[in-house]
């Protein structure tokens, strides 16, 4: 059942983004920014974790889930380290994803050659 929910919730989040692209002409960069901030706000309000429990990767793999990780991290940071956690919690929780993106992204760009545009 988790797989069915992952499929349709994940698909639905992408479909919403597609409607925004087609109807508003928001650029992909703006969509990603909008979605990550939405995830952070929903995560801060405690509304996104229930969706992650329901849909698993359908909620955690879209970039909205990255925003949620930041929000959950900062809340945990404040609980454990007080005021300093405001600055450390978000990046700490997202550290794996950020570092992986930088290192894998760097290596892939270094190794592969850009293809000629058709």
């Amino acid at each position, binding site marked *: 059942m*988790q*797989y069915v929910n*992952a*499929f349709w919730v*994940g*698909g*639905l989040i*992408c*479909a919403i*983004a*597609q409607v*925004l*692209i*087609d109807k508003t002409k928001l*650029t*992909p*960069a703006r969509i*990603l*920014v909008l979605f*990550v*901030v939405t995830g*952070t*706000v929903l995560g*801060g309000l405690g509304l996104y974790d229930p969706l992650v429990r329901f*849909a698993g*990767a*359908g909620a*955690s*793999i*879209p*970039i909205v*889930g*990255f*925003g949620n990780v930041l*929000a959950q991290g*900062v*809340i945990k*940071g*404040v*609980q454990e380290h*007080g*005021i300093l*956690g*405001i600055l450390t*919690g*978000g990046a700490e929780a*997202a550290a*794996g*994803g*950020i570092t*992986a*993106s*930088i290192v*894998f992204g*760097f290596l*892939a*760009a*270094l190794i*592969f050659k*850009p293809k000629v545009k058709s």
Partner: protein
Amino acid sequence: MQYNQQEYQKYLEKKSPNSPLLKNVLFAFVIGGAICTIGQAVTDFYQTIAGLEESTARTAASITMIFFGALLTGMDVYCKIGKYAGAGTLVPITGFANSIVSPAMEFKKEGLVLGLASKMFVIAGPVLVYGITASVGVGIIYYIIRFIGG
């Protein structure tokens, strides 16, 4: 090349008048859903086979998906899927990796520092700036609520 903004705009303007919204949305739904389903399988693998706890398994799954997003972008596979998938390949975390690798590869010829490395963040930069800033906002509000609540 869905991540070069000018080209993407041109592509949109060329395609928009007769590109059926329903077809685009359906493609985005199916391919986006499929990527998330793969992500779920990877999460389950880390949880059941590798024995990681749930939140760690989710992080490991995201990292794995980022790896494949970067690899498939380098192999020129991701952009080809993206032509049909639109937001279906943009919104999953693999799309974030794609947004890093795609411009970095394209501008590699302008050097390893101001070409490759700086262009990695053309899209990822804003995502991190607004995402992290928003998280600090959440942190401040949460701190104040905790302080008042004792």
